[in-house]
């Protein structure tokens, strides 16, 4: 009998890092499977995380596939399961099933300039593909990150971003002015317009709140990016993760299986219901 897709594998939380505190807290969790680790995934894929007694939640993997000894998830406290995860401690056990979804087609992007555009927790799914490209820097063109959050405190991976600046171009932004903030002030789409990335031989990867994605796409179109150069991820409520429970669909597509990664060329052809 084939493996039962609904049964999660047990994993232990080995590290918890508080990224953002306050009303919209974000924590980054590193987990290790209790048993033999043959878990393989592509950048941009998701997993269904279980907190037993609370339920399951679909979360993107923020560590790159080349890291084999742990899986990393950055999680905004929002619903029942993510709130329970925020209460957990190192050593606690969760369930993981997956990976699910299509992932980013990074093999097709070799030789191209990659522009990552993220807002808030949207840096988490980008982080996996960004780190993967950075690890094989010679195979890609210029790498650039445009990332913003509401306030400087709401930025995730604060320390990692400092390190990242030594390796690639990073443009940060916050929505409203703060003393000592030296970078862009305004929304992420405005920062995109301000930095004017060139569409020449480029691919953009954008993740963030739906409203941000909408305006980022508009900003990129104004900069004459083609639809097929713009990639984004869609999130929807999910239960099964395998295209059966019926709720994450956009038209005939199930985001859990056929997404979450879409080029704008693909996504704009689907019913605009997400």
């Amino acid at each position: 009998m084939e493996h039962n897709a609904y049964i999660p594998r047990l994993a232990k939380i080995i590290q918890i890092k508080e990224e953002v505190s306050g009303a919209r807290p974000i924590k980054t969790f590193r987990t290790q499977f209790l048993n033999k680790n043959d878990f393989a995934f592509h950048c941009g894929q998701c997993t269904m995380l279980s907190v037993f007694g609370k339920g399951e939640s679909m979360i993107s993997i923020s560590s790159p596939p080349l890291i084999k000894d742990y899986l990393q998830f950055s999680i905004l406290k929002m619903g029942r399961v993510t709130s329970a995860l925020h209460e957990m401690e190192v050593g606690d056990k969760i369930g993981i099933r997956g990976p699910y979804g299509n992932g980013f087609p990074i093999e097709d992007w070799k030789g191209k300039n990659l522009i990552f555009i993220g807002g808030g927790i949207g840096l988490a799914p980008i982080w996996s593909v960004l780190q993967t490209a950075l690890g094989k820097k010679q195979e890609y063109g210029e790498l650039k990150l445009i990332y913003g959050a509401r306030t400087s405190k709401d930025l995730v991976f604060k320390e990692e971003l400092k390190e990242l600046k030594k390796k690639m171009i990073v443009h940060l932004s916050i929505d409203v002015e703060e003393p000592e903030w030296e970078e862009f002030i305004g929304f992420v789409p405005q920062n995109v317009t301000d930095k004017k990335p060139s569409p020449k031989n480029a691919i953009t990867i954008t993740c963030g709140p739906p409203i941000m994605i909408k305006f980022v796409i508009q900003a990129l179109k104004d900069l004459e990016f083609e639809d097929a150069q713009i990639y984004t991820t869609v999130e929807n409520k999910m239960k099964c993760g395998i295209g059966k429970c019926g709720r994450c669909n956009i038209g005939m597509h199930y985001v859990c299986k056929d997404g979450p990664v879409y080029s704008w060329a693909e996504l704009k052809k689907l019913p605009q219901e997400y």
Partner: protein
Amino acid sequence: MKKILRKKSFLQWVKRLESYKIYAPMKDDDFWNFALINNPKDLNLNHSNTVLSPKKIIFPQREVILEFSTSNDSELEVKEILPEEKASIIFGVRPCDARAIPLMDKVFGGDFTDPYYWKRRDKTILVGLSCNTPPSSNCFCLSVEGSPHSKEGLDILMTDLGDKYYVESLTKKGDQLINLAKNLFEEPNAKDNKDLENIHKDSEKKIKRQIQDIKNIPAKLKEMFESPFWDEESLSCLRCGICTYLCPTCHCFDINDEIISSSPLKGKRVRTWDNCQFPDFTMHSSGHNPRSDRASRLRQRILHKFQYFIEQYQNYQCTGCGRCISKCPVGIDIIEVLNKVENYGT
């Protein structure tokens, strides 16, 4: 294999099938519903259509998929709970309900096979009964590529010829059931064959309701995604969800954890039918909802059945049983909706 079974021999046949679990329509107060038959004498094939289709036997409304617990030394344990595997026969399946099963096979098969579904499905034998008269005034199977004597999805189709049944076995599983009581069956003669043909033809004429021209519907629906039509049609919807709960083809489900004890932790993960007509079906934990109004939810139900399913699996996800029409408390009628779609804007 084509056979004749005298009605007086029917009970004997059922008795020979004692190694199987047998389900059949049973009358409970005023309603017919599929139930487990403990005594073959209770088996009665004079039913109108059942309130719920036999879908619930293969894909139950609620099922446990796993159990979890922590032992005293706080070791977490997760146990897969698969359904028991005893073979079942479902008698009296209406052809529309039978046609719904291969549609569900597509959903629960594919890239990820669903073990809970297939454990039951593989062990279930479907014995259908032709509808000599439509069991509901809202039957419209002919409009969705079905018929009152469709064999699709069945292992055996029985047709009532008065004092006998014409029994057509359609699969090896069907042959098996007949072979368990070979001596009870006779060969059909020329008159039986003629009677069968006439009854089948007549039964088609008795289906009164129809969708005008279904072939144009999927393309038309695609054009009408943004149309105010959906606001108008959904105005009266109470979002009770009866349309999809009673539908033989609807497969959407929810998965939730139920706690028996919190310390030490003990509980189960349960799959239950869910419903696209409920607002929280698609509501994100942030509060964002891609289908936040009745219009988008009615549109989802209709488009899933008559556009998305066609695009994905090349079938309509509707077999024309008419339950959603008969039971809707505010009279939303899928045939009327589709006929309006057909003529919309022309």
